C-alpha cells in the first residue's frame, strides 16, 4: 500500500511541477468560468450582462400614444437597462443601428395615436375600424439580437396595453350601439368619452403563483453550474495527461526500471491510477475552492461536494485508463484525450444545456462523467444534500469500476505491465 501511495504522490508532484500542464488544468477553466460569469451577468448582479442598451426613438407621432411610449423608455423602471436618445431623422437613426451605435431604432410614425383613438371630428364608422393600421417600426441591430429583442418586447408590451384599452372601449361602444343606447348624433362624443374615462384598475384577474417551495425558491447561482462544467471539461485533459505518463515512462525506460524493483505490476498500476486520481481531485478541488473564494459561489452541503468530486474524478480516471490501455504512444493518448475532452464537454453539458436536447441525446450523455457530475452539482446548487446525490455518485462509481476493469484486461493482453 505504501508503494502505491508513494508512486501516486510522485506523479501528483510531477504534475504540479509541470507549468504548461498547470496552465491548462487550472488557468484555462478558471478564465473561461470568469468569462461565463461576465456573460451571464453574474458579476453585475443581473440576469445577463446587458445594461444601458442604446435605443434611438424617432417620435413622428408627437401625440398622446407616441409621447407615452417615449415616456416608457425613459421611465425609472427601465433606467439602467435602456439608454434612450431621441432623434427626428429616421435615416440617421437607421444608419446608427447599421453602424452598431445602437441596438435598435423605434420609429413611431405620424398619425399613430389617431389610428387608435379617433380624433375630434373623425367619423366613428366602419371605414375608421377597417382602416390600415399605422405601424411602429423597430429597426433592429442583427449583431445585438438580445438587446433588440428586449426593445421589441417593451414596444410589444406597450402596444398590448393599448390594445387592451382599445378592445375594452370598442366592446362598450358596440354593446351600447347594439342595444340602441348610442345614436348617430351622440356616438362621436360618447366614443371619445369612453376612451378617455376608461379605468386602469380592472378587477378581472388571474394571479400566477410561482413554485415558491420548489426550485424557484432557491437562489440559483449560474456559476455553480458553469464552474464545475469547466472543471469537469478540463478534468478529462488531466486524466488523459496522467494516462500519458504511463506510456511516457515506458518509452523513457523508467517503467521497466520500476518493474524490476521489488514492486508488483499491480502496485505500479495502482500507484499510477492513484496519481491520476489525486491530481484530478486536486484540480477540481482547487477550482471549486477558487470559485468559492474569488467569485463567492456557495456550493451547498460540503459533504456532498466532497463525495461528488471524488466520484466524478473516479469516473473520469476510468476513462483516462481506458484511453491509455487502447493507445500505443503518449502522443496518441494526448490526441485522443483532447478529442474526448471536447466531445464529452459538448455531449456532457459543459457547453450546452442538456435540457434543450432531445431525450436520445440526453441518454448518450450518460456515458460522460460531465453529465453525471453536472447533474450532482445542479442538485447541490438547488439546495440538495448528500442523499440527493446518490444516483450520480453511484453512476460515476460504476463507470469508474467498469472502465478500470476493461483497462486492466487490455493492459494484461498487451503485456505492458509484465515483468
Amino acid at each position, binding site marked *: 500500500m505504501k508503494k502505491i501511495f508513494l508512486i501516486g504522490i510522485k506523479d501528483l508532484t510531477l504534475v504540479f511541477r509541470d507549468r504548461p500542464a498547470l496552465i491548462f488544468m487550472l488557468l484555462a477553466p478558471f478564465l473561461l468560468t470568469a468569462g461565463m460569469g461576465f456573460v451571464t451577468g453574474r458579476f453585475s448582479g443581473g440576469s445577463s450582462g446587458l445594461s444601458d442598451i442604446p435605443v434611438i426613438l424617432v417620435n413622428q407621432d408627437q401625440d398622446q400614444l407616441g409621447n407615452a411610449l417615449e415616456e416608457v423608455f425613459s421611465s425609472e423602471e427601465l433606467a439602467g437597462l435602456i439608454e434612450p436618445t431621441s432623434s427626428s431623422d429616421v435615416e440617421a437613426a437607421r444608419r446608427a443601428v447599421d453602424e452598431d451605435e445602437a441596438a435598435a431604432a423605434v420609429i413611431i410614425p405620424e398619425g399613430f395615436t389617431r389610428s387608435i383613438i379617433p380624433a375630434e371630428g373623425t367619423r366613428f364608422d366602419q371605414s375608421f375600424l377597417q382602416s390600415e393600421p399605422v405601424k411602429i417600426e423597430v429597426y433592429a441591430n442583427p*449583431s445585438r439580437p438580445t438587446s433588440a429583442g428586449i426593445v421589441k418586447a417593451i414596444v410589444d408590451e406597450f402596444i398590448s396595453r393599448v390594445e387592451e384599452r382599445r378592445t375594452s372601449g370598442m366592446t362598450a361602444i358596440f354593446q351600447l350601439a347594439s342595444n340602441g343606447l348610442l345614436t348617430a348624433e351622440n356616438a362621436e362624443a360618447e366614443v371619445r368619452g369612453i376612451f378617455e374615462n376608461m379605468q386602469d384598475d380592472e378587477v378581472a384577474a388571474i394571479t400566477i403563483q410561482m413554485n415558491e417551495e420548489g426550485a424557484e425558491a432557491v437562489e440559483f447561482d449560474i456559476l455553480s453550474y458553469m464552474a464545475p462544467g469547466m472543471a469537469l471539461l478540463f478534468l478529462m485533459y488531466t486524466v488523459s495527461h496522467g494516462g500519458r505518463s504511463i506510456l511516457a515512462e515506458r518509452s523513457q525506460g523508467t517503467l521497466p526500471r520500476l518493474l524490476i524493483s521489488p514492486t508488483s505490476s499491480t502496485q505500479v498500476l495502482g500507484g499510477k491510477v492513484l496519481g491520476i486520481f489525486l491530481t484530478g481531485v486536486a484540480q477540481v478541488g482547487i477550482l471549486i475552492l477558487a470559485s468559492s473564494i474569488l467569485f463567492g459561489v456557495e456550493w451547498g452541503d460540503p459533504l456532498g461536494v466532497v463525495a461528488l468530486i471524488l466520484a466524478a474524478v473516479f469516473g473520469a480516471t476510468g476513462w483516462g485508463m481506458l484511453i491509455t490501455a487502447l493507445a500505443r504512444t503518449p502522443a496518441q493518448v494526448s490526441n485522443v484525450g483532447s478529442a474526448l475532452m471536447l466531445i464529452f464537454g459538448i455531449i456532457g453539458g459543459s457547453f450546452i444545456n442538456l435540457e434543450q436536447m432531445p431525450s436520445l441525446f440526453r441518454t448518450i450523455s450518460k456515458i460522460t462523467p460531465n453529465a453525471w457530475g453536472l447533474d450532482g452539482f445542479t442538485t447541490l446548487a438547488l439546495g440538495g444534500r448528500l442523499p440527493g446525490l446518490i444516483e450520480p455518485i453511484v453512476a460515476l462509481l460504476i463507470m469508474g469500476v467498469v472502465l478500470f476493469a476493461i483497462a486492466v484486461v487490455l493492459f494484461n493482453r498487451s503485456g505492458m505491465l509484465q515483468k
Partner: protein
Amino acid sequence: MKKILAIIWKDTIIRFATPSEILFFIVLPLVFTYLLTGGVPSGDDDPRIGLLVVNEANTPASQQIVEQLEMSTAVRPETVTREEAESLFDDRRAEVVLILPAGLSSDSIQNGTAKVELLQQPNNMNALAARQAVSTAIRRVTSSFSAAQNAVRERERREPFASETQRQQYFEAALETARVLQEDTPERVTAVEGSTAETEETPTYDPRANTSAGQLITWVFIPLFGISALFAYERQRGTLHRLLTTPVTKATFLLGTISGQVLIALVQMLLLVGFAILVMKLSWGRDPLALFAVLLSSALAAAAFGTALGTFVKSEGQANGLSIMFGMVFALLGGCWYPLELFPTAIQNAVRVLPTTWAMQGMLDLVLRGGGLPEVMGEVIVLLGFAALFFVVGVWRFRYD
C-alpha cells in the same frame, strides 16, 4: 519560392502525421457547429417549447386559457395529470408546468380571486419564455373579462339593468364581442432587421449563422495559435538549429511556415463555410470576395499571433496548452460563443485588442447585415494590422535554439 513550397509541404506532413488531426481539423468543428446550431433533430416537427398543463378546473375559463396557449407561437401545451406533471418536473424532464386548479372559473376571474400555479425549472431560458407565453395567454383571457366588465359599467352609467339576469346576459354578450375584437386585432409593430446591403434582399436574423461564424473562428484560430507548438517542436528536436547550416533565411522560414498554416486554415474555413451553406442552409453573405478578405485577414492575424507566441514558449507541451487556452478564452471574449452585447461595456471595449473580436465583427457584417467589401474593410485592415504587429514581434524575437 521553391524553399517556401518545401517548408509548406514539410509542415503539412508533420501536422497530418497522425489520423487524429483529421478529428480536430474537420470532424470536431463540424460536430460542434452542428450541435451548437441546434442541428440535432428532436423527432418533433413542432419547434415550440413543451408546456405541461394540468387542467383540474375543467371549466370554460380554464379551457379558454388552454386554447390561447395552443395559439401561442412560443409554447406547445400538453395536458397531463398532476402526478405525471410533478414526476416529470422532479426528474427535470419537464421545464415548465402550468396547473389550472379547481375553482378557476368565470366567477373567480370576475371577482379577481382566480389563481393558477406555474412550476418552472430555475435558470432555464425555455422556462422563462414559457412563463411569458403563459402570462400573455392569461392576459388575453382576463382582458376580455375586463372589457366585458367595462361594457357593463358603461351601460349602467346610462341605464340600469332591470334584473341580475339581464345584467349577466349583457355581460356574456360583451364578453363574446371582446373576444371577436381580440381575434381581429391588427399588427401594430413591425420589426425590421438592420442591413447595410444595398440590394433589396435584406438578410433575416438567424442565430445559427452567428454560431456557425463563432465556431469557425474558434476551430481555425486554435490550430493557428498552435504554430507556436510547431516552432517549439522543431527547436526541441534541434531541426530548427540545423536550418542555420542551410541557405534559408529567417524570413523565408517564417514565411513558409505561416503560409502553409494559413493555406491549411483557408481550406478548413472553406470546408466549414461549405458545410454551413450546403447542409445547414445558412447564408454566408452575398459577396464571396468580402468573405475571402475576412477569412484571409483573420487567418493571417491568428497565424502571426501563433508565431509571436512561439518565440515565448519553451516546450511543445507549453505551446499546445497555451494555444488551446488562448484560443478558447479569445473566442469566448471575442463574442464567438455568446454575442458581445451580453458582456459589460468595459469588457466590450477592452476586447477590441483581440483579433477574434474583429474577425467575428467582420463575419457578422457579412452573414447578418449582408455587407460587402466596403463594409468589412475596417475589420480587414485592423486584422492585417494585428498580423503585421505580431509578425514583427515574431521575427524580432525569433531564435533557433
